[in-house]
């Protein structure tokens, strides 16, 4: 070993030690097994590149790739367009208005993707809600189920919170005095927005877009349930190659293609912009909040709120039918589906398992992310980019590939159908989401506080507990929240890792939607929705009281 590299290690000992847990975790439980699966793509019958030749010489597969990129870009663009004014309004409001605007996004974010896919089916199908409204208004009707438009709308609705949160956090960091300076120098509102505000919000724009784009590329649940096989996306192709013909080499090649597409977009964005945090000043303050905003912004916000909330609300009436049926509007009234949720070992047991796993995942991914975030602050730009890419990759690899990889590893280690196994698998999926907000706040964090504490004789640990922790609590809470939701909502990997006697709630819901018409899923969703609403409202009330 050269003296150069050993002195690098000596110089960066603290950073490397903080980095070690997350890197080791991802290397052992994610990178290694996934590489093993993807290596299959070079081991097909047609030689090392045989699968790739087959993939790219098929006009069908190429068309599916192009369609997937197109939909992902469209969803990203629409989320940005819809989310930007909303986030802008959020930073311009305070008190209850801000609390409501935030609460709505949180509520939507917390509503299970399974539930929302289900709601979108009810809304978009023929004789569905939208079709009936269109007919009522005198049109011929409007059936979006099975169309790319329908898939896009549903995906935008699901991805919107992932866009709004980073946008808000970047905008909240913008020094509003710059804006006032600009206006006082005679710039119009529009010029100020274009030349000052928008460029400063760029980290949020890029951060949100990267998450939305990458997630949309590999999305399985929504395109699978709302879309049609005749406009299928890459994730569906990979899934059916594996599940119906067991063609793992070709499926792996398709996954490598998807991975490369994602990296092609993500890496340049991360090189140019600080995706996980804004480098802007932190002296934003509350100035400019609570000013009168254009009525158009409010109308826009109202539309966004409707878009975010309606799918969740559609499910509520479906939880009371007399018969085992999802007809809309439902017939009769009965509470038996609620009773079934509490009485059935499958539903109640799955709920408890999910809760337990999600809490543990929240802990592990938050701790790993805080360590990594602390290390990131001391790292050089190149190291930062590499680490961010590593932590974000679980987002880029298709869920079914991760599922297959993790399942194989767990068979050897006897971790399937155990709490430990679930926690490990979900932590892989949750880390990208926990890491981004946590790393962002840690990077923005003013190191002078730390230096001041140190100069006054505080130990590192004291400084961490009394200075750093309170200052990064918002980012940490956001990251923890994300981790909880991701774990509580995960379907694809859990389908593999679970088994007899141990299943999570989304898997139970998935089984229920896939196998049977069981209004218990609507009852479970309604209760989850109410629980979420209560938590969001309670935390809002608490923060509002404290603010006074």
């Amino acid at each position, binding site marked *: 070993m050269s003296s150069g590299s050993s002195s690098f290690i000596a110089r960066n000992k603290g950073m490397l030690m903080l980095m070690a847990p997350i890197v080791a975790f991802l290397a052992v439980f994610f990178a290694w097994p996934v590489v093993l699966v993807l290596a299959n793509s070079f081991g097909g019958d047609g030689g090392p590149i045989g699968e790739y030749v087959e993939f790219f010489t*098929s*006009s*069908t597969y190429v*068309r*599916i790739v192009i*369609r997937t990129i197109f939909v992902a870009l469209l969803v990203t663009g629409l989320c940005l367009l819809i989310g930007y004014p909303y986030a802008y309004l959020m930073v311009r409001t305070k008190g209850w208005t801000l609390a409501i605007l935030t609460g709505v996004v949180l509520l939507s974010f917390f509503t299970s993707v399974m539930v929302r896919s289900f709601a979108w*089916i009810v809304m978009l*199908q*023929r*004789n*569905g809600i939208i079709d009936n409204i269109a007919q009522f208004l005198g049109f011929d009707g409007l059936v979006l*189920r*099975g169309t790319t438009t329908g898939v896009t709308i549903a995906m935008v609705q699901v991805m919107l919170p992932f866009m709004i949160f980073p946008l808000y956090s970047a905008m909240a960091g913008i020094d509003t005095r710059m804006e006032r300076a600009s206006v006082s120098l005679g710039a119009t509102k529009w010029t100020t927005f274009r030349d000052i505000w928008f460029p400063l919000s760029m980290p949020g724009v890029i951060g949100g877009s990267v998450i939305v784009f990458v997630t949309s590329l590999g999305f399985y649940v929504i395109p*699978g*349930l709302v879309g*049609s*096989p*005749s*406009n*299928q996306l890459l994730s569906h*192709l990979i899934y*059916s190659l*594996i*599940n*119906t*013909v*067991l*063609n*793992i080499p070709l499926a792996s090649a398709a996954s490598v293609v998807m991975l490369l597409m994602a990296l092609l977009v993500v890496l340049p964005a991360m090189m140019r912009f600080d995706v996980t945090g804004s480098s802007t000043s932190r002296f934003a303050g509350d100035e400019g909040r609570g000013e009168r905003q254009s009525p158009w912004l409010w109308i826009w916000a109202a539309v966004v709120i409707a878009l975010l909330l309606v799918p969740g609300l559609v499910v509520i009436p479906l939880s009371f039918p007399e*018969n*085992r*049926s*999802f*007809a*809309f509007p439902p017939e009769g009234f009965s509470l038996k589906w609620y009773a079934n949720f509490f009485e059935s070992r499958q539903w109640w047991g799955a709920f408890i398992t999910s809760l337990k796993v999600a809490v543990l995942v929240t802990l592990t991914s938050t701790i790993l992310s805080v360590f990594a975030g602390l290390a990131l602050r001391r790292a050089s730009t190149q190291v930062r980019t590499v680490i961010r890419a590593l932590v974000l990759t679980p987002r880029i690899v298709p869920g079914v590939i991760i599922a*297959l990889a993790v*399942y*194989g590893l767990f*068979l*050897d280690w*006897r971790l399937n159908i155990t709490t430990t196994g679930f926690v490990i698998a979900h932590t892989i999926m949750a880390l990208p989401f926990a890491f981004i907000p946590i790393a962002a706040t840690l990077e923005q964090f003013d190191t002078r506080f730390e230096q001041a504490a140190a100069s006054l004789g505080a130990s590192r640990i004291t400084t961490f507990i009394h200075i750093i922790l309170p200052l990064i609590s918002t980012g940490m809470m956001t990251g923890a929240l994300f981790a909880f939701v991701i774990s509580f909502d995960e379907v694809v990997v859990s*389908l*593999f890792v679970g*088994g*007899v*006697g141990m299943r999570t709630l989304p898997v139970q819901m998935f*089984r*229920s*939607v*896939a*196998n*049977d*018409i*069981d209004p218990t899923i609507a009852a479970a969703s309604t209760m989850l929705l109410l629980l979420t609403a209560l938590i969001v409202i309670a935390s809002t009330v608490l923060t509002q009281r404290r603010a006074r």
Partner: protein
Amino acid sequence: MKKLITFAAIAATASAGSLAAQDKPDHIVVANTGGPYLQAVLDATGKAFEEKTGIEVLGDGPQTLPQLQQMVQADRVTWDVVEVPPVFTMRYCGELFQELPEDLQNYENVLPGFGNKCGINSVGYANIMLYNTSAFPDGGPQNWADFFDTEKFPGKRGLWDGAEGVNLEIALMADGVAPQDLYPLDLDRAFAKLDTIRDDIVFWRSGAQSTQMMESEEVDMLMAWSSRAYPALKNGAPFEPVWNQHIIYNNVLTIPKGVAHPDVSADFIRTAMEAAQQARVSELYPVTPGVIGTEPDLDEAGQKVFAATPERAASAVVPDLQWVADNSEEINRRWTEWLNN
């Protein structure tokens, strides 16, 4: 000395106990598509097996092929009995599934065309056409040719999103091919025929979706599994089954390679094939028994979708699944191509 004897006795009991444990597990796991069907199997066959052997039967599902492959490759098989589509056993007999004992391989009185050395058909369903009686009050389509006739019977058509065993066959029958001349399938001709109704197709992916399609009257006619038509008809969806040119389909029971107690697995399968269990399962869940002549006690909707009446069995089309299994990759590739071009 007495101590020694006691010790030996304890040791003997303990080793006998562990020997017994090796012979007879305290539970086995049966895997199929899951949901209420799994529950029906556990309530019917599972209970009967428990009473007979004292071995508890647990259920798992949905079973997937890649999961099974990984279990077998890692030699950690946790499913003692798995129910799968016959195409799987035809492709992976000896690789993922082990050969069944002789008596199960040569079981008499089961519907032919589905079992092989590694799989025996348990229960199944029919791929039937149903039409919406409110869309066609004066009588709807009566055969697959009508189903493909968009002028005589305009409207949306529901089809399963899958390539194997149904869609190509019904397209060819609609194009005038007699059921006994279907195989080898003329893929070009089948896809050309499917092209003619392409714009009117609504695909369903899971059985529950097809039920929902009937209840919400999303389509005017559809191909559905008889078992999934049942809940819709029971809830009063205005659909009428057409028992003409329907394609029957049975899933098979298998023993994966590397299970701990293949004898116990085989015993479970024997229990599942007994007339009492065959009838009970189809009373609990509207599947059609694989054993010919089983007469379950069914309600009105159940009778409407029961495929095993002598009359319906006589007019049934039996797919050549061995041909389908041999050409599985080609069929699936062409299907994906057709869908996306």
